[in-house]
């Protein structure tokens, strides 16, 4: 299975995302923001980092990159897309996921090992987990506070679009402890924490993050 990992100027965790795909048994394919071609990949990961320095708003400029037009079109037709941290910000800015990510309530960048409650184990990216499972993966961001107007939050909750929620402390002041959300069809998932940093015992706090990458391989085989 070919999983594309898009590099924008300022992407940082693209090497990590590619490694995670590989460790899960997939074939990572490097994609360049300025191209117009998704090279027949079966799914796409938008990695973490500081695309365009996070200038203006995190993810805002990258969301308007040439390749993103194709990502948006294909995602609307069901291509599985995972946005991690900056990638999540890009997906929100591109209008593929609801809500927005803003400056952390304590105003600092924060990097820590974070507990997450999996609330949806039926998306393309979370089927390797079980609903109600708690996992530990790193979180690291300065603009990770998930917000939306209260009515929109109610709608998001009502539609069961919350995929993962922070447990054991909210690292950035996100509304209702929301750490990640999904599209209505469960094919697009965005989250602030970094599953790709929890794929090896040697370098991560756990290997709990690997499930995101094995999930999509399973979903693709099933499709």
């Amino acid at each position, binding site marked *: 299975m070919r999983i594309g990992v898009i590099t924008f*100027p*300022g992407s*940082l*965790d693209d*090497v*990590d995302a590619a*490694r995670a795909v590989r460790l899960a048994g997939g074939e990572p394919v490097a994609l360049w923001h300025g191209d117009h071609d998704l090279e027949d990949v079966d799914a796409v990961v938008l990695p*973490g*980092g*500081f695309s*365009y*320095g*996070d*200038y203006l708003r*995190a993810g805002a400029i990258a969301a308007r990159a040439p390749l993103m037009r194709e990502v948006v079109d294909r995602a609307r037709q069901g291509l599985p897309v995972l946005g991690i*941290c*900056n990638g999540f*910000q890009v997906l929100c800015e591109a209008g593929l996921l609801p809500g927005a990510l803003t*400056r952390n*309530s*304590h*105003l*600092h*960048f*924060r*990097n*820590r090992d974070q507990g997450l409650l999996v609330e949806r184990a039926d998306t393309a990216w979370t089927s390797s987990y079980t609903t109600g499972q708690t996992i530990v993966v*790193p979180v*690291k*961001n*300065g*603009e990770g506070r998930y917000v939306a107007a209260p009515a929109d939050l109610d709608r998001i909750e009502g539609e069961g679009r919350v995929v993962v929620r922070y447990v054991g402390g909210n690292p950035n002041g996100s509304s209702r402890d929301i750490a990640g959300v999904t599209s209505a069809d469960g094919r697009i998932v965005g989250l602030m924490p*970094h599953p*790709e*940093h929890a*794929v*090896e015992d*040697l*370098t*991560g706090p756990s290997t709990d993050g690997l499930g995101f990458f094995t999930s999509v391989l399973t979903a693709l085989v099933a499709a």
Partner: protein
Amino acid sequence: MTATHRVDDGPADHAARVLPQLDTVDRAAARPDDEQPFAELGLKDDEYARIREILGRRPTTAELAMYSVMWSEHCSYKSSKVHLRRFGDLPPSDALLVGIGENAGVVDVGDGYAVTFKVESHNHPSYVEPYQGAATGVGGIVRDILTMGARPIAVMDSLRFGRADAPDTARVLPGVVAGVGGYGNCLGLPNIGGELLFDDCYAGNPLVNALCVGVMRHEDVRLAKAEGVGNKVVLFGARTGGDGIGGVSVLASETFDAEGPAKRPAVQVGDPFTEKLLIEACLEIVAADLVTGIQDLGGAGLSCATSELASAGTGGMHVDLDAVPLRDSTLTPAEILMSESQERMCAIVEPDKVDAFLAVCRRWDVLAAVIGEVTDGDRLTVDWHGERIVDVPPRTVAHEGPVYERPMSRPADLDALQADDPSRLPAPAGPDELRAAWLAVVSSPDGADKSWVTEQYDRYVRGNTVLAQPEDAGVVRIDEDSHRGIALALDGNARFARLDPYTGAQLNLSEAYRNVAVSGAVPLAVTNCLNFGSPEEPEVMWQFAEAVRGLADGCRELGLPVTGGNVSLYNQTGDVPINPPPVIGVLGVHADVRRRVPTGWRADGESVLLLGETRGELGGSAWAAVVHGHLGGRPPVLDLGAERALGELMVTLAADGLVSSAHDLADGGLAQALTESALRYGVGATLALPGDPFTALFSESVARAVVTTADAAAVRAAAERVGVPVTELGTTGGPALALGDLELSLEELRAAWSATLPALFGSPAVAVGTVPAGTVPTS
């Protein structure tokens, strides 16, 4: 910009003011008696005279600017050079591929990999503008590493501030930390360790030292040299603006008294996003073999880069300043030469590779311009608007600056200070007093949990961080297949250096060596950043010379090369020089990072062993400082032989998988180490202290570590073979550190240890204003 037209020359007569004129080489020759503001630029009478002698005429304004900056203490090392030679005189090391004198030294770490690392100060800028000062400090050291052809893979930061509860510390610290994090995080470099210490003596002069480490294949090592007549000089990266040229504005103000010159900002503003693109572009350029020489632009900007490249090469160089992409069109040529705008690099490129070079830059959105070429002959010439404004022998600018043998004298107060032994201080007796002292030390700002700071740094990016803060050493994997990796530690105890700079420097070496060794790595090479007061003070100069001598002797004894470093002088608050920390970085190598040894206890029922010998050594200790505000006596006795034995033992224990944790003993002694190992994963221990409990807990004797093991007998046997004393302390497990009638629950220890920094700096209100408008560090 208030000034719309500017002049850049310095004659005092009225006519010249009215009709500003470019100060060309011809004009300088024709008007030898024009007065020049050399004193305002920091040049001494004899230095100015020497410039005139070198050139056989007075310098042009642009030349004067170049010499004045390049002959400054910061760039020329004029006070420190005679002492630093000791490092070059160390016996040659097989591991050293590139030694002192380049942007950073390069070390062979095996399997064809080379590693380059260096630590540099950005103290004064960080006081003026904490966020930008610290951010550009990180940016600068990263470019030094990049310049060698290496991919930067991690950073560290060593920080000193005034008293933790002083109002100014609340201004400076949050900004510095946000700046270190803001820049490094955005570059995608994990921060793997550093130091954070407080003392009144840094109140008006914080210390911000940043380290970067990079890795490359042997064949990719690049040097800062301009070779090959006809090769092009390419300037790439950010546009040149008025950053960091405050002092040189004097040249403009000389003749522009009507409305005064536009004040040039002395602060440099960082743009980590541009630097990230610069890194990727540079690495692609090196990989495609498109450069023959490369140099970063740091202090003294283009003046430094061009004169150093030319001076290190074989020929001369010609530069056309009109080709330099500017952000501010009102800059004078002298200012362009001096500008310290960040995120710029200079490369020497063969003519037929220029197109390919520029194509790589375009792909990464990096601005690049050919600004000159390597010439035959031995002059560095610079033109502006078709006129020659610089014509100098580059060596005289870059490498043949003044060298001073400054007077030195042993500080007059040192005898009294050393005689003021802490043995006169009341020592805690009984469990209650010991508990109070213990809690005081681990909750002091120096001893407390640093997470509030280190959580602002990304430790995970790149996915190769094996150990990071709060571990003793940062450990990074450099090869995912062979599991080869490196370890790094930075240490700079200033109290020891104040009491005895010769021994103090060695003690810092000894501590950094130990930190690397306890992780299971083999120490390989040393870098350093020497932060001292004014070299014009004989007592400071003596401290400096003693520290260098100590470090050189220590390295000789341990068989380690010094690969480079940095000197920061004039660190003082008013007339009072700082307690000088010679900050020492030690690099080690792990043949297999999977064998690394962490500091925290994880399992119950393991033996806790103390390796090494404890003596009653409390001079300059954390206990004396925290509990009594006392600094006096002698620092601990150095024992590099014991240090080396401990190191060898740790490498064996790690390789054989015999220990599950190891933590070195340093500031705060055993009390501090036990606290940190227990709190890491919340595992306590039942222990018995050997000998006098006060000495056992708070002495700072060298060459010691606490290890945990499931096989105490095997550890004992291995230790015996290398002559390292072993003391059995007890067994892990339980919710407390239980030492007979002295029992501290992990809960109360954690409360004391972790509350300090958040209470001081944790409120969002403190963060207000730390991040300037143009630079929101996020994601």
